[in-house]
């Protein structure tokens, strides 16, 4: 019986590690992406293309001169991103953490290891957005929707799976 329990535990562990991809593949290449607002993005967050995980955020620092958040993305070497790809910080739902989703571009040349994604879109400040919809004159961001259609406009950025 003890052997059965051990075998079950070992089996589940192996299965999880193979699915979860904890074995970080060596040879991942790093690219940088600058964001105006990193929001709740943290090191270890997933980087995905079309919803498929292709890497992780390895570190986030502040560039002192421009006050931009610089995220280092560690990307699977089999994934080559066109140079005009767009990196966007999206949230995994209201209570979930943030991750970086990359929309591939159409350029012929790829981003080289150590390169940078030029087109970025920072995290959406959900509460600022809601506030600007509730009180449109209260000086919100320019992303605020017109007061005529408050409900769908407020719910759209939140549902960005």
């Amino acid at each position, binding site marked *: *019986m*003890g052997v*059965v*329990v*051990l075998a*079950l*535990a070992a089996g*589940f*562990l192996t*299965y*999880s*590690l193979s*699915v*979860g*991809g*904890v074995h970080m593949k060596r040879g991942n290449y790093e690219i940088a992406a600058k964001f105006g607002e990193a929001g709740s993005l943290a090191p*270890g967050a*997933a980087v995905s293309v079309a919803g498929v*995980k292709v890497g992780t955020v390895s570190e986030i620092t502040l560039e002192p001169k421009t006050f931009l958040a610089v995220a280092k993305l560690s990307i699977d070497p089999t994934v080559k991103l066109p140079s005009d790809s767009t990196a966007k910080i999206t949230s*995994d*739902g*209201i*209570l*979930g953490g943030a991750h970086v989703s990359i929309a591939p571009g159409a350029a012929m040349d790829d981003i080289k290891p150590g390169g940078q994604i030029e087109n970025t879109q920072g995290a959406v400040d959900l509460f600022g957005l809601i506030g600007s919809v509730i009180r449109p004159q209260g000086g919100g961001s320019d992303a605020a929707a017109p007061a005529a259609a408050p409900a769908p406009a407020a719910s759209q950025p939140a549902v960005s799976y």
Partner: protein
Amino acid sequence: MTAGEAARKVATNPVRVLGRSTLGAVRMVGSVGVFAVRGVTAALTPPWFFGQLMRQFVAIGFFSLPVVGLTAIFTGAALALNIFTGGGRFNAEQVMPQIVALGITRELGPVLASLMLAGRVSAAIAAEIGAMRATEQIDAMRTLSTDPFRYLVGPRLLAGVLMMPLLAAVADTIGIAGGWLVATRVLDFSSAVYIRNTLDFLQGWDIGSGLVKAAVFGFIVALMGCYHGYNAKGGARGVGRATTHAVVSSAILIFASDYLLTTLFTHAAQ
């Protein structure tokens, strides 16, 4: 006034009752403390009885695996269902994998595994050593100049401290597997997402703190079994009483030290 009346008066005098029970409690704590120090000294200094040690590793560790595994898998499954229901009240069913993982590794894995061990191992140790005490085998051992602390208590304490974290690690894994089974088979979670959420969320210290707790609980379980068995009095009935005391006291001490350790870890983390 006859002697019987006098004795009854003494027994019912509230001040005397209070004093006697306080002294009894203090004496108990003291004797457990002395016993623990003697046991730990015997466990950590040579000569060691390796045959005894191996036998205890197998008895405490390996043969406890089935009961620990069964407890963990059902707990994980029930926890998953409960958190799914609770999370649904504010549309947060999706955080279920994380909460199951946290609850199992930090709290339920170590505590439930060691409670099962308290029932299985603590009672067995108390009965074994208590029977040896009742049949005067321990005195015979002394006569043959074998220290019972070295031969009986030390190996059991070592086995408790070393085996319990391993059992807790198995309980963690199986418990999360139980939650995963229910989530994927009953609640339509995606298997890969569940596992990735769990792995991304768990930090080393979530598991580490649980294993440190488990080592302490393992020590408590072995110590209580040895102490009550070693101090068993009065033949077969004394052995029965010793097993009961061993199980009850190790369960209470596990819960109390669990709270203390959790407080300590929470403050240390801040």
